[in-house]
């Protein structure tokens, strides 16, 4: 500990302790104290009264005091400024895509349009180009739970499943068909990230992308809804949600939308949209929740318009279980509304069921979730059945419904009856190794990446579940 005064100062008499500092001219005849203010002839004037601040510290008498109240009064502790409403949530939900403390990885290459569909690129890490990052950020493809903030640039690992999914998308677009996929798999295996990769692939290949970042926002009665007049059975629109979606959609797909033109005129819109107007202009007409649903319907009609050149479209949704159950909305007769009666959701389910398809080809991809997902027995059953049916050589036995269970939902089964199920498994060892080398090069994994370490983290991560590997390798404190 350093002394508060240096020793030399202690040796020499310090100027503050010199008796010189005492004013010498004070008259000696004045008593050193006075009993009353009046008698003290030279008593200084009282200080000008300042308005009392209740928070100002009151002078306390030191020493023991009599306790007058029965209980101790709570001390007022100054905790600083409380965060404003919504500030905490914004902090919690913020997404930072880079970290200047992480090392740049020298061998990292930027992703090009064909990279993720090429099976030669399996177990390679690619960084996302800046423009693509903006697009993905605009459509809320990044999630706060994903650890983008640990690395210098957002990068993704190309896996076997990635190549599979991208291949299906490419094939469907080439044949003017709509690929209908459901991504499923264990917790933390990277289903949402697979969606992100699909979106990245679509953006790079100039597709139009519509993304529902979290399906629960649609069905948990958290946005406004209203019945659509003239529909039977009654369908419901969600203008606020749709407005936000259109705005994000416009921001993310600006380049493609400006090159895609309307096929018909839309006099019903607040701004008159004529034929051969860029779709971007159509999207820009959505400014208020009131007219948002009309704009969305016009946009949807344009996207689904036949006999005009349309780029392939990718429609993705995360958290499939939420739109496969009764929603929390109520009808005017106070009955629960089925999620498929929400008009926006119905667009998605019709595509997923194969009842409608994109004119220029494309893909509908839904991802299930394991962390925040209601139990939907029908969905679980049908997905398991589809998976067993798709297994090579009929290896797996097709599960049958429980005859004594009545919670099955016919509408859900009809939607999912013919989808393709892609199971996202744990990564293979070469993929895990490649990812760990990327971690090590970023300066996050401070170990030699060898067979032993890879196997260890691979096993600790539940046979290659990437999120769990990340937890075991990067998020556990090592001292």
């Amino acid at each position, binding site marked *: 500990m350093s002394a508060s005064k240096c020793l030399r100062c202690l040796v020499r008499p310090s100027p503050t302790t010199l008796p010189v500092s005492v004013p010498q001219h004070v008259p000696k005849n004045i008593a050193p104290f006075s009993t009353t203010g009046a008698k003290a002839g030279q008593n200084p004037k009282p200080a000008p009264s300042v308005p009392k601040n209740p928070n100002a510290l009151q002078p306390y008498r030191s020493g023991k005091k009599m306790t007058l109240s029965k209980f101790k009064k709570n001390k007022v502790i100054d905790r600083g400024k409380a965060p404003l409403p919504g500030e905490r949530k914004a902090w919690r939900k913020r997404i930072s895509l880079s970290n200047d403390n992480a090392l740049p990885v020298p061998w990292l290459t930027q992703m090009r349009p064909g990279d993720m569909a090429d099976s030669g690129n399996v177990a390679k890490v690619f960084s996302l180009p800046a423009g693509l990052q903006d697009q993905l950020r605009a459509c809320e493809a990044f999630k706060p739970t994903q650890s983008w903030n640990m690395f210098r640039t957002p990068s993704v690992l190309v896996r076997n499943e990635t190549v599979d999914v991208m291949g299906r998308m490419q094939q469907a677009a080439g044949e003017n068909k709509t690929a209908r996929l459901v991504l499923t798999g*264990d*917790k*933390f295996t990277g289903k949402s990230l697979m969606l992100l990769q699909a979106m990245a692939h679509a953006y790079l290949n100039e597709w139009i992308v519509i993304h529902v970042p979290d399906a629960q926002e649609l069905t948990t009665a958290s946005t406004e809804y209203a019945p659509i007049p003239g529909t039977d059975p009654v369908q419901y629109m969600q203008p606020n949600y749709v407005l936000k979606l259109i705005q994000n959609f416009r921001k993310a797909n600006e380049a493609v939308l400006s090159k895609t033109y309307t096929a018909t005129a839309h006099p019903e819109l607040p701004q008159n949209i004529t034929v051969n107007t860029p779709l971007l202009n159509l999207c820009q007409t959505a400014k208020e929740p009131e007219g948002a649903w009309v704009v969305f319907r016009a946009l949807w009609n344009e996207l689904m318009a036949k006999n005009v050149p349309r780029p392939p479209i990718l429609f993705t949704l995360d958290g499939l279980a939420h739109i496969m159950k009764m929603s929390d909305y109520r009808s005017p007769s106070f009955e629960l509304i089925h999620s498929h009666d929400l008009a926006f959701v119905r667009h998605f389910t019709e595509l997923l069921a194969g009842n409608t398809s994109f004119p220029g080809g494309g893909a509908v991809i839904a991802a299930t979730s394991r962390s925040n997902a209601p139990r939907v027995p029908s969905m679980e059953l049908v997905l398991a059945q589809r998976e067993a049916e798709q297994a090579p050589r009929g290896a797996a036995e097709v599960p049958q419904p429980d005859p004594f269970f009545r919670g099955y939902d016919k509408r859900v089964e009809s939607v999912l009856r013919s989808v393709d199920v892609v199971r996202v498994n*744990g990564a293979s*060892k070469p993929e895990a190794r490649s990812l760990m080398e990327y971690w090590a090069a970023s300066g996050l994994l401070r170990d030699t990446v060898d*067979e*032993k370490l*890879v*196997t*260890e983290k*691979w*096993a*600790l*991560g*539940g*046979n290659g*579940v990437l999120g*769990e590997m990340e*937890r*075991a390798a990067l*998020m*556990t404190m090592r001292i």
Partner: protein
Amino acid sequence: MMASSRHGVKATLRGAFQHIQGEKWQPLEQQFRSLRLTQSRTTGRRCMSTETSLTERQSFRAAREFDLDNLASQLKTVKHARAVPVSPSYFSRSPRFNDRYLGLEKLMRMYGNLPTVPAADAGRVAWMSLADIKQAWGESVKATDYANCLIILKRLHQIHPDLKPPEVTRALDEFKRDIQAFDNEPSPILIDRYGRALGVGKRKSSTARAFVVEGDGQVLVNGKTLANYFGRVHDRESAVWALHATDRMDKYNVWARVEGGGTTGQAEALTLAIAKALMAHEPALKPALRRAGCVTRDPRTVERKKHGRPKARKGPTWVKR
């Protein structure tokens, strides 16, 4: 009891003849002769004990067997002779222990020079503790005596097994506990025809059985992967700690069943189970595993609750009245 035994009779007789001849101590041969003379007492010859005739010297024969039934009537023995105890430590406070102690010392004198084996090779023996001895023989034994006795016991136990005399073995057996826990050799874990070694481990109230085969590092616990079964990373790490500590993570596959207890207990039971199975594959890993703390079972379990207390040790709440 003593008077009825053969030894007792001899002692009695000794006393009788002492009385007759007025001498304190006689050599054994003289006693025998005097016994013969007692037969000739009927012929009127007396005090011949110091004389030896030629005929007698020539026809020296062993004494006839005592006719125990008629002896008392033939000899005027003392009716109530005081029996001399066999044991020299009869009047000490701990004759049983002392006798055995002296016996051990005698054996030590006799066989102390026999070749020995190192103490580690002699085999572990659970000797009776001081408390056991006090309890079993009903005597108060000094701790010092017991300690000295134990030194001799251990030294005698080290005598080479091929040369160890049976009397030594008998003497040592008296100091062994009834239950020899060290004799219970755990049956060695064998590797079956599928290449599996089954290890069993316990911790707290969990039991784990781990089948370890050569492989590439896959782990399944109750049919789930490690990440699915253990939510905590720490538990996952401790479950495969035996493999991690010996750098064998990528050499073996594990298939395990765990039951009972909580997550920590199950994870640490797995540590032990995998370590044991691993030692079946590679016995040379035992020191490394011991250093990693994977060999010894942790004996700590929940302490039982006691009456009068809200928990095992917690005191009751203080109440004013």
